[in-house]
């Protein structure tokens, strides 16, 4: 009965960082690729400024192994995590579909189907987008590290707690406001959409927009008010993913026999969940940070549709031994 988690699970957190870095660097690379495509389409290399010539040369060397005809061949990967095309496959954020339906009050099926694969993956893996793909998560987690350094240096860092149900209300208010104003308002406050398009504006269109100011405000909110506060308490996309992932199949679960109650999982959890008391809930994003930090390999993936109820203190901890001692003494008394 003593199950041991696969050693692979301990390294998934590194894989997650690789995935986040790939997504974020693609979002930076794609605007440059588009500029290169426009330069190629214009056939005017000699007319470019020196900086643009540099971009042209770098992108030409980068893409020459992959495509002969950059004006067409580079169209295979376009867009951002809000909506994009990937080798002919159109993918959209489920929130973009829901908010577009709310804004237009009509259903356009080809667009709804672009969210099918993300929705299916969310039904299986829960809120995995937030931990593994979201370009804002990359910056927010770096921000968390910054906050940790600031805390170590003795600077004041916010660690308030709010009601995490607030984000569901924000989702609802956003959809209602979208329906009233007839525009996709949720996109204006949804960090991955903001990061995706602001990187494009900043690189290809020559200036950041208003969304970047909003994003900086959320970074400051995370730093000064609540750790990872926007994702935990405010993000409408996170709310939708949490609702979809309520009955997710793949869950992180605690193995009570090897747990020693060290509570490192609770300390490291970006979303402020409570793995120590088996209280994962629908908001776990399967980021595997708790598995990576667990000193006794007491956390593992299991295929279930609900969390197991609180299993009590870990069998390697002091609390469990004391209770065992009490139980055995009461038993001995009973025998006497």
């Amino acid at each position: 009965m003593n199950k041991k988690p696969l050693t692979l699970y301990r390294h998934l957190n590194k894989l997650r960082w690789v995935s986040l870095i790939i997504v974020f660097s693609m979002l930076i690379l794609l605007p440059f690729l588009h500029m290169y495509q426009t330069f190629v389409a214009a056939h005017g290399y000699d007319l470019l400024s020196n900086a643009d010539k540099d971009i042209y040369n770098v992108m030409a060397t980068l893409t020459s192994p992959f495509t002969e005809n950059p004006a067409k061949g580079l169209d295979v990967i376009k867009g951002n995590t809000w909506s994009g095309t990937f080798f002919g496959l159109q993918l959209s954020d489920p929130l973009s579909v829901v908010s577009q339906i709310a804004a237009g009050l009509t259903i356009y099926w080809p667009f709804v189907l672009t969210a099918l694969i993300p929705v299916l993956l969310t039904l299986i893996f829960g809120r995995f987008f937030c931990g593994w793909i979201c370009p804002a998560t990359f910056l927010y987690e770096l921000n968390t590290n910054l906050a940790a350094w600031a805390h170590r240096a003795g600077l004041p860092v916010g660690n308030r707690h709010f009601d995490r149900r607030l984000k569901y209300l924000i989702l609802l208010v956003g959809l209602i406001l979208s329906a009233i104003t007839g525009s996709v308002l949720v996109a204006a406050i949804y960090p991955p959409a903001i990061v995706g398009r602001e990187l494009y504006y900043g690189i290809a269109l020559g200036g950041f927009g208003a969304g970047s100011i909003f994003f900086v405000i959320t970074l400051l909110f995370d730093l000064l008010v609540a750790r990872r506060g926007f994702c935990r308490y405010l993000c409408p996309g996170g709310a939708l993913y949490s609702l979809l992932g309520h009955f997710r199949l793949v869950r992180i679960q605690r193995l009570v026999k090897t747990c020693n109650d060290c509570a490192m999982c609770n300390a490291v959890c970006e979303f402020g969940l409570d793995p120590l008391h088996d209280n994962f809930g629908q908001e776990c994003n399967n980021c595997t940070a708790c598995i990576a930090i667990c000193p006794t390999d007491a956390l593992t993936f299991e295929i279930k549709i609900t969390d197991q109820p609180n299993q009590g203190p870990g069998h390697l901890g002091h609390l469990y031994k004391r209770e065992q001692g009490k139980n055995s003494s009461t038993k001995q008394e009973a025998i006497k």
Partner: protein
Amino acid sequence: MKRRSFIQQVIFGTGVLAAASLPYGLSSLLSPKVQAATRSRREIPLPGALADPEEFASACIGCGLCSEVCPPHCVLFHERDGGGRVNIPYINPEERGCTLCGKCMKVCPTNALSVTAREKVTMGIAQIDRTACYPWVDRGICGACVSACPIGEKAINFKLWNQYRPVVQKGCVGCGLCVEVCPQPSLPIRIVDRSMGTITPSRI
């Protein structure tokens, strides 16, 4: 006591609602609304866009794909302004015109842009101010707009008895390439709504 607890609940509820709408208020505060009427000449719809701008704003999710595939890089966005219309795409023909390549219609995930034949695009119609255009005021020969037009004869050609005086035809779709190439600083050619005709009414 009952009344007091009821009032407390109401105050709590409104407080929570205010907290929930705070991000939206903040984002609209950061991007104030700009009057659409002052900029219609510099803001024409994309090819294949839904006819009603309100409908277009509700169908567009602001993903920016149309701009990312655009070869001439002509699609711009309401970046810092627009309130509810934030990151809605438009084309400013005075900066860069559309070449009607049709990539944006193909890539758009929603029905905001739908695939349309090049002759059936309705972005507007070019209108020529005959009191400012060089050939029309006998200040030389030009023909830049005619040579730039991607549609050709059906959209814009020269007046029959006087070469180099451009006349816009019914086939014009309003892509704005003529506006981009026009050498006259006051831009006597401009893209307007189709109902406004092809000749700017004289103010004299």
